[in-house]
């Protein structure tokens, strides 16, 4: 019997082709938005989790509170200093530690000046390796910075592009940073993140002289000994730094984070962004549902006579109710199927664009069956719920009133 009801409903839907398409469009937009946003959000989250996981969980990142990524932006900034680095190095459980500092400075080349990120890094091979792992910086051509290099820099991959300075910058070219000439000795691989690809690296000593930092560092990266619990090492460092900086417990003006913690922070930010986006997608789905309801009301009104006839020839309330619920359910399900297809397509397209622009492996879209079937079920339920009120109206129609309707 249900099969026949399906057939009846489908015939009705096909009969009102234009309106059915429009109704479906509403659902399709909502579902496509939900699917593409969830897939992309999940892909982004996976990518970030993956990047942090590649750092390894034996590293600690020590930074001043409030300015871990942009030292110097806060007005009354506290700083992590050179001497803090020495204390970290002396703490038991730490095998290696290095400082890292960044700022934004004018870069001149080909008589043009633009502002980009400049960072200072250690020239010690081990320390640089530790930093390289943390930053995902890998050398593409030339050489890395060595001890004794003074007016030498390494540059990101973006400088090979002519659009930055009208001319591509290569090995052996000279650029001007804060008025001083530097020779390019190395070019980094593309990372996919524009600020990193536009960064200029120089020996930390040179950096300190050039920017007159007085020993202030942006961040300390510490490697913990194999077998040591990074969390315990972190608490040892906390105690040592608190002593040297004369701080009471609980009043620390610095933070120590493990890669997992940093990943968790990113992930919670992404979660919020995703919830907001899903909320917006949800609104469009709600509008789609209201649209289905409107269509169903119109359909009930138009078929008043048919409903009256069906009741006259023996249809009971639940028959009519089922008939209309199936119809609105079909809108939900069909709209859902098309919407999922389009949503996956959009997500894959965005992924492709990301790969073309920033290189592979930054964003990998994840399409899960749970998401697909969950969305289809949800869409079907939205369709059915939207049909409840109109279907009830149809079911309650009195046969005489239905047959009399013109």
């Amino acid at each position, binding site marked *: 019997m249900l099969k026949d009801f399906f057939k009846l409903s489908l015939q009705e839907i096909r009969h009102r082709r234009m309106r059915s398409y429009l109704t479906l469009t509403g659902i399709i937009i909502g579902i496509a938005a939900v699917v593409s946003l969830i897939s992309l959000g999940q892909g982004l989250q996976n990518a970030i989790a993956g990047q942090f996981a590649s750092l390894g969980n034996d590293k600690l990142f020590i930074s001043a509170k409030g300015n871990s990524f942009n030292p110097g932006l806060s007005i009354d900034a506290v700083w992590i200093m050179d001497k803090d680095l020495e204390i970290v190095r002396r703490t038991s459980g730490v095998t290696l530690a290095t400082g890292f500092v960044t700022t934004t400075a004018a870069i001149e080349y080909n008589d043009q000046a633009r502002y980009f990120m400049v960072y200072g890094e250690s020239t010690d091979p081990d320390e640089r390796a530790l930093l390289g792992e943390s930053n995902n910086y890998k050398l593409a051509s030339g050489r890395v910075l060595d001890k004794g290099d003074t007016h030498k820099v390494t540059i990101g991959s973006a400088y090979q592009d002519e659009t930055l300075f009208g001319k591509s910058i290569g090995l052996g070219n000279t650029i001007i940073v804060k008025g001083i000439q530097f020779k390019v000795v190395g070019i980094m691989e593309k990372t996919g993140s524009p600020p990193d690809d536009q960064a200029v690296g120089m020996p930390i000593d040179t950096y300190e002289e050039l920017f007159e930092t007085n020993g202030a560092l942006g961040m300390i990266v510490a490697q913990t000994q194999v077998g040591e619990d990074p969390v315990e090492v972190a608490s040892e460092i906390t105690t040592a730094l608190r002593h040297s900086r004369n701080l009471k417990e609980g009043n620390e003006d610095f933070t120590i984070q493990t890669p997992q913690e940093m990943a968790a922070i990113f992930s919670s930010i992404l979660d919020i962004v995703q919830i907001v986006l899903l909320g917006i997608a949800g609104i469009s789905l709600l509008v789609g549902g209201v649209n289905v309801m409107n269509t169903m009301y119109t359909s009930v009104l138009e078929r008043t006579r048919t409903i009256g006839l069906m009741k006259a*020839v023996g249809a009971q309330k639940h028959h009519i109710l089922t008939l209309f619920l199936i119809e609105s359910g079909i809108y939900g399900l069909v709209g859902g199927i098309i919407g999922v297809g389009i949503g996956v397509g959009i997500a894959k397209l965005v992924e492709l664009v990301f790969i073309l622009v920033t290189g592979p492996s930054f964003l990998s879209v994840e399409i899960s069956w749970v998401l697909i079937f969950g969305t289809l079920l949800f869409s079907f339920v939205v369709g059915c719920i939207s049909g409840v009120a109109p279907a009830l109206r149809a079911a309650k129609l009195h046969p005489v009133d239905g047959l009399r309707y013109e």
Partner: protein
Amino acid sequence: MTAQSLVPLIQLHDVWKTYVMGEEKLDVLRGVTLTINKGEFVAILGPSGSGKSTLMNQLGLLDVPTKGKITLEGRDLTTLSENEMALVRGKTIGFIFQQFNLIPTLTAVENVMLPTLFQGIAEEERVVRGRKLLTMVGLDHRMDHKPGQLSGGQQQRVAIARSLVNDPSIILADEPTGNLDSISGAQIFEMLIHLHRDEHKTVILITHDEELAHHAQRIAYMKDGRVDRIEEKATKNSSRKRPRAE
């Protein structure tokens, strides 16, 4: 035909139907008492506004009276729920309407099969019945046509086939020829007579056409919401009746 051979099928006892329109009450039926016997061909005749359509709704179990009692084979129907009424209606009564009332999106055979859908009958059986009845009304070559592709007379034949699909004991025809040309109308009317004479259906004809009504065994004249008088035409029809022994 003697009184003893008559078995009451539907009985109306002092049935009133009152419509309330704002402050005003309108008594459309004012105490109708009427018995329809099994196997009878009854015409309900009256001008428009006499209450005959409202009476048809009561006889067809499409509506409940404001006051009074309706019984079907002795069973009181006024106490039934809406769904129970629908069930009884679907099994017992076949409707033929002036407007045909076919569903435009369904084919002829699907329209005929429609009432069986609500009786939970298996699909194969439903298709067999639908095809058989359409063949019976001479539309075997129009099975898969939609109503829009059929003439008025053909549509009404589809409607007749539909009215028979649950094998009801009562055929209720409301001005069945009212929307047809005279030739088609005559064909449709012949079918009604055939249903009564050969298929032993109880046929109730609602009409304002006195000439048509005179084909019935009894005519109930409606006037101002009441049955004004009943005219027996037993002698005329008895000659056409089937032999008892059959």
